[in-house]
């Protein structure tokens, strides 16, 4: 039986990642509380499923390793093995190996890896603690017996009017109608695959008009071990049986021809309600920790495409509005209003579709914190808040690395060792908080520890030693300015600076990354009490507010997030300081740059008395950008300029404006 499994590979990979995630999460729970039987059961269940899935898919090494894990787990479950830190460590190691295997398979590998080291370790745990591996076999066998008993489902179907019409028509065409009951072996774990194969085999020569549970549930594996089908075909019962028998792990406990008249009679008496109840109950108990929301996995490219089209629609709606305004047709304008409403809704729905809970990123941290804390001999309570906060997919993909950086820093340098904490009169265990929340059009993510805090004097000392600031400058630096020194690239290039609570290891990288996401990062710290890094991110990078400005004949968009204000100055306000044009703005010296010059805009420069200045912010510094005209604020859909034009300094992307022309978006951080 050769069956192309490749179409299931994606599903396998996704599901095994979910299981692995779950395993890690639950094992952390179990580590915290070794009596947590719910966590243990969950681990056992996930490992068992993973084993079945991987052996069905033919990844033997994966299945073998999970099998040995399962053995150890079942000893734990039976109370024959204590949950010691040794056991937990080995299991975590196994999870890492599984992760590696899955990644390897994902990259197109065969999933063949020598796991003998871990298997030996697992065996050692088992034998050193107990010698009763044999005892486990019969218990599991017993369990599966029970399951078969309970799974003997009832046979009657309920048909609706439509089904009966179809059946009657089939009968009039002399087609056979069959009732087929299919049982999947209890050991088979990718049941949906088997069900699919049954459907495929049958539909070659006929039509399945009804299935119980529904085809969708079967597809999602939401059934016990049996399912029932009503099948219309010209082939005989024997052919059906022989055909189904070629599918492994499948049995046919019942098959019989149906009489249409009987069926229609039965349908009137059949009550569908209990049927539903049974299924619902099943689903609930089956997936206790997962909400049974129905979801679809969609290629992100398709969403981008959809977004593109919505952008186009909005653009053309704009044109329509212009036509409507000039034509003064009441009916047309009413329709345009409707279209306006619908397209606004459509836009926000598409935006929402692209939103993903930050959980995706946060989920890997508990495990990382645990490992790091262990490695560094620190005791850490890791608390996560606001996992459900949603962010645009584009941001989610990028935010992981900076957060890893901050968390590592916090554990490595932020938190004291348990002894030091006790000495300083703090609780032995340090606390690390990871928080995410919405606020307006932004998402805030905070990483907060209750460790040393930042020693301002030492940072200044260090910065002077590194030549970043002079001793004199250092004296005048405010608290916030001093913290900002940590983000200076020169500050962090050196060896680890653990003695000053070590902040600054690669923080410039973090800052650059956050800024590339149009975000900002702030530090707050109280010596002796802890440090808080606060990251402010836009909800999405796809649609932003922008200020449209014009220089000669060209129009550009400036992201509103980097605009502080706009102002008008007179040309005689401009002063020269070291060959640099500046103006005084409310007592501050503001360097001036002319956009026409920066971008070498062609055309004649006009000399006006009054000039428009857009005050933009680049890394805490304000800069004045001289432009010819301010057009106004606008919501823009950012588009990439494509591979060919990537990385032009000062240009962040492009938009398609309401008139169909392309306009470029300025990137303030790289413009000057």
């Amino acid at each position: 039986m050769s069956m192309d499994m490749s179409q299931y590979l994606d599903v396998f990979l996704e599901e095994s990642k979910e299981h692995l995630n779950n395993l890690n999460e639950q094992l952390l729970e179990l580590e915290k509380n070794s009596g947590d039987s719910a966590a243990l059961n969950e681990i056992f269940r996930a490992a068992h499923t993973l084993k079945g899935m991987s052996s069905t898919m033919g990844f033997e090494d994966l299945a073998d390793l999970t099998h040995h894990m399962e053995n150890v787990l079942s000893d734990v479950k039976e109370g024959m093995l204590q949950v010691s830190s040794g056991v937990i460590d080995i299991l975590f190691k196994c999870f890492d190996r599984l992760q590696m295997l899955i990644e390897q398979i994902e990259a197109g590998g065969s999933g063949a890896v020598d796991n003998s080291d871990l298997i030996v370790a697992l065996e050692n745990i088992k034998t050193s603690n107990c010698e009763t591996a044999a005892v486990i076999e019969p218990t599991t066998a017993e369990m599966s017996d029970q399951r078969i008993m309970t799974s003997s489902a009832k046979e009657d179907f309920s048909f609706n009017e439509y089904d009966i019409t179809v059946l009657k028509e089939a009968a009039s065409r002399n087609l056979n109608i069959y009732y087929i009951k299919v049982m999947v072996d209890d050991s088979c774990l990718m049941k949906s695959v088997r069900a699919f194969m049954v459907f495929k085999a049958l539909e070659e020569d006929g039509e399945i008009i009804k299935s119980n549970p529904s085809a969708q549930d079967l597809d999602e594996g939401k059934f016990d071990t049996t399912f029932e089908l009503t099948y219309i075909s010209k082939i005989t019962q024997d052919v059906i049986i022989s055909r189904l028998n070629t599918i492994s792990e499948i049995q046919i406990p019942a098959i019989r021809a149906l009489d249409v008249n009987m069926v229609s009679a039965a349908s009137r008496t059949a009550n569908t309600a209990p049927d539903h109840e049974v299924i619902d109950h099943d689903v609930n108990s089956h997936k206790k920790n997962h909400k049974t929301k129905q979801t679809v996995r969609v290629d992100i490219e398709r969403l981008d495409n959809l977004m593109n089209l919505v952008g186009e629609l909005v653009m053309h709606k704009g044109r329509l509005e212009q036509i409507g305004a000039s034509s003064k047709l009441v009916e047309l304008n009413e329709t345009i209003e409707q279209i306006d409403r619908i397209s606004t809704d459509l836009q926000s729905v598409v935006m929402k579709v692209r939103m993903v809970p930050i959980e995706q990123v946060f989920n890997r941290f508990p495990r990382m914190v645990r490992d790091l804390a262990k490695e560094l001999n620190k005791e850490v309570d890791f608390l996560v808040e606001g996992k459900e906060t949603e962010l645009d997919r584009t941001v989610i993909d990028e935010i992981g690395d900076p957060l890893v950086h901050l968390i590592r820093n916090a554990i490595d340098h932020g938190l004291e060792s348990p002894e030091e904490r006790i000495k300083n009169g703090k609780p032995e265990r340090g606390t690390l908080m990871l928080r995410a929340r919405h606020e307006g059009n932004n998402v805030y993510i905070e990483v907060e520890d209750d460790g040393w805090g930042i020693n301002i004097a030492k940072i200044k000392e260090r910065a002077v030693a590194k030549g970043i600031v002079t001793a004199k400058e250092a004296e005048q630096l405010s608290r916030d300015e001093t913290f900002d020194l940590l983000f200076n690239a020169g500050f962090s290039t050196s060896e680890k600076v653990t003695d000053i609570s070590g902040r600054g290891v690669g923080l410039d990288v973090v800052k650059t990354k956050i800024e590339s996401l149009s975000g900002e990062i702030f530090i707050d710290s109280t010596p002796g009490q802890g440090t808080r890094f606060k990251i402010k991110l836009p909800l999405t990078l796809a649609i932003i507010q922008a200020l449209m400005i014009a220089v000669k004949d060209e129009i550009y968009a400036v992201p509103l997030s980097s605009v502080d204000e706009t102002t008008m100055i007179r040309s005689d306000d401009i002063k020269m300081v070291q060959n640099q044009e500046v103006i005084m703005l409310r007592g501050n010296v503001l360097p001036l740059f002319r956009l026409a010059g920066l971008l070498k805009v062609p055309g004649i420069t006009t000399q006006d008395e009054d000039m428009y200045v857009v005050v933009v912010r680049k890394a805490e510094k304000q800069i004045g950008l001289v432009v010819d005209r301010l057009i106004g604020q606008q919501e823009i859909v950012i588009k990439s300029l494509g591979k060919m034009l990537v990385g032009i300094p000062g240009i962040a992307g492009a938009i398609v404006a309401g008139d169909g022309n392309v306009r470029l978006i300025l990137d303030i951080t790289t413009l000057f």
Partner: protein
Amino acid sequence: MGNETSMHFQSSYAQDKDIQVVAFKLGQEEYAVDIVNVMEINRLTNITRVPRTTGYIEGVINLRGNIIPLINLHTKFGIAASGAEDDKRIIVFQYDDIKAGIIVDEVSEVLRLSEKEIEQIDKIYNAINSEQITGIAKINDRLLILLDIKKIFES
């Protein structure tokens, strides 16, 4: 944004090594590109200049919501533009995940070239651009310079 449809298709039957090309004019010279990578041919639309790029990036256009960069082969090859403004076209190419266009003075036709009509060029022809030229086709008394569009976009 009506696509150019009035093109003459030479009725010849496909032979083993035939290629189909789009022939166009740059100044007085005739060029051709393999049709496989041609996505569409459009009239000139508004081109937005992209500052801080090399001279032969003419700018970007909006093609149904996609931003398409345009390469000016005139500047790249040092050929003066000629012909009526109305005859100028943008040929948009797509290969791998790159979409880009070139501006030409006139699109003449789509034709089929057999391998024997194509002559490999000597490196002598033009030391700078020979990399981007795959050969020269001789049809009657016309000379068509075959461009390797991928090389042009990658350079």
